[in-house]
């Protein structure tokens, strides 16, 4: 088991479907929880002057209370469309989207959203940004301020409460955005590639931080990403979509035990899951057919004796 990261040992990997007892128990418990989000036969068709584009076709899945779901898929699979439909920012063509059994008709404070582009209000300080949702829902300034302080402490930004967004780093901005969404105490937190614009180091920190937050508060998270490692590291279950049209390929139960830490990236379960995701998202035959092959025979522009390899 020590040499698991060597590719030739891949043959010895357990199946990603194999779950240890602890993991199995966790999933059994999870599935007994109430269903919080239910998507049934969701279709989304864009009508343009050039004709119709099917973005989502017959998408169905369920999310239980306090579950962490990642949605993954190649570009064009409609994962962003899906989360925008869930947020109520986009309409859908047919099917049902139910939150606590009630259909979603438009954006609302019961579904918080964190965008890739931060979308903090630049004219408000960090604290005022976090207070925004409360103010919009007619909660007095004093109480809103107290609540905001609490959530800023949770994301570790209490020292920056009077700073303006342009003074913060990308990771800090996204922490403010998370606090701003959570202060409304939504039923579900929708995250659209929130760490996509961050550098590798801050992304890793933010992932750990997000899990910490998720562990400590009553929140269900739907998280969009195109990063396989990120999805496996964070999720209980991963919804894999395929492109053109966006359809559900598989809902994978991640066999990596919790609590998660970065050393698990090399564990057999992790590698097995990643191999499965890779196979789903980049099918072998499709790769050969559709992608332009990389030019192997290069023209040599340097002195023939001057070799670097």
């Amino acid at each position, binding site marked *: 088991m020590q040499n698991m990261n060597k590719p030739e040992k891949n043959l010895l990997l357990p199946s990603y479907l194999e779950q240890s007892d602890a993991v199995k128990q966790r999933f059994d418990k999870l599935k007994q929880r109430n269903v919080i989000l239910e998507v049934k036969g969701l279709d989304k068709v864009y009508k343009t002057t050039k004709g119709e584009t099917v973005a989502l076709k017959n998408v169905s899945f369920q999310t239980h209370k306090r579950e962490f779901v990642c949605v993954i898929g190649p570009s064009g699979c409609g994962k962003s469309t899906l989360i925008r439909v869930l947020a109520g920012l986009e309409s859908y063509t047919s099917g049902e989207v139910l939150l606590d059994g009630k259909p979603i008709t*438009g954006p609302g*404070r019961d579904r918080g959203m964190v965008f890739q582009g931060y979308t903090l209000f*630049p*004219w408000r300080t960090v604290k005022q940004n976090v207070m925004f949702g409360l103010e*919009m829902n007619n909660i007095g300034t004093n109480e809103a301020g107290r609540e905001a302080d609490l959530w800023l402490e949770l994301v570790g930004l209490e020292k920056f409460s009077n700073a*303006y967004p342009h003074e913060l780093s990308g990771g800090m901005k996204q922490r403010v955005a998370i606090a701003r*969404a959570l202060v409304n105490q939504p039923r579900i937190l929708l995250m659209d590639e929130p760490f996509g614009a961050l550098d590798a180091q801050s992304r890793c920190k933010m992932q750990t931080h997000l899990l910490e937050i998720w562990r400590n508060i009553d929140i269900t998270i739907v998280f969009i990403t195109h990063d396989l490692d990120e999805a496996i590291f964070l999720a209980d279950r991963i919804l894999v979509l395929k492109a053109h049209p966006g359809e559900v390929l598989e809902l994978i139960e991640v066999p990596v035990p919790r609590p998660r830490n970065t050393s698990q990236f090399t564990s057999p379960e992790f590698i097995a899951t990643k191999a499965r995701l890779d196979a789903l998202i980049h099918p072998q035959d499709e790769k050969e057919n559709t992608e332009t092959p990389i030019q192997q025979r290069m023209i040599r522009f340097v002195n023939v004796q001057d070799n670097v390899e």
Partner: protein
Amino acid sequence: MSMSSWFTVRQELTPDRRKIIGWASFLLPLLIWCVVSYVPFIWHPMVAIQQPGDVDYFQVGMLIDKATFKEELANMQAQDKVSPEGKPANPIYLPAPHEVAKAFYTAFTTPPVQKDGLWLHQSLWKSIQVIFWGFVISSLIGVPLGVLCGTYSALSRLNEPFIEFFRYLPAPAFGALAVAILGIYDGPKIAIIVIGTFFQQVLIIANTTRKLDYSLLEAAMTLGTNKFKLLQHVVIPGILPELYRDQRILLGWAWTYLIVAELIGTTSGITWFITQQARYQHFDNVYAAIFMIGFIGLGTDLLLALLGKRLFAWDKPANKE
């Protein structure tokens, strides 16, 4: 220091260079003016008579065409009469810088020619009032309408095609109409400034409003903001710095309509002063008055820019310029 470092493409200049070049932008035109005025062999197409000699129509101080002067000089020399004397001079419409500088002071201290006439500072104040009210009235309607057009597509479609058409109509064309409706005093003048400003204002501000990042509105909606609160809590605060910059530019445009506006009905304000002085060929005063408009305009803009920096401290990235 190499010359090429002054011409790096789109790079910020050092503060010292910024200052030097900023001053140069004013000093260079002044230098050209000085050269033309004070170097006798450059231009100077006229001759100022110092000694009329025996030419019967010459008088001391008279400005004569160089060619005519030479002809008369040759005439007198041929007839053995006393030759006229003169020195090269510029036409009357181009006074020298020091004359205009002096006029800056004397224009304020010279009492009006007519008894009921206005002093210069009174004329200026009148002009400023016309501009102020024209701009305020235009903004009172134009700014809210622009913001609404930029926010709601229905309103934009309803208003903007007509405004797009109207803004091509030259404002002074409405002068006669404005006099017929509003009389001959300040009314029509303010109306011209309003017509000249308003239509551009609506379009520019609608555009600025549309440039606001839509994802900010989406974020606000997911936080439970309803449609009506969006305008007050996201759209308006979000565009405020840009709106302020637009207003500064529009105020500059309003000034450019001033002279035409003041010619309508009874001529008044700084325009009255300028036309009067031009009639008596006091071109030094004319230049002084024109420059005064420039100084007042630039002065207010600098003040407003300074104020804007304080008001919108959060807009740091944009304020760097």
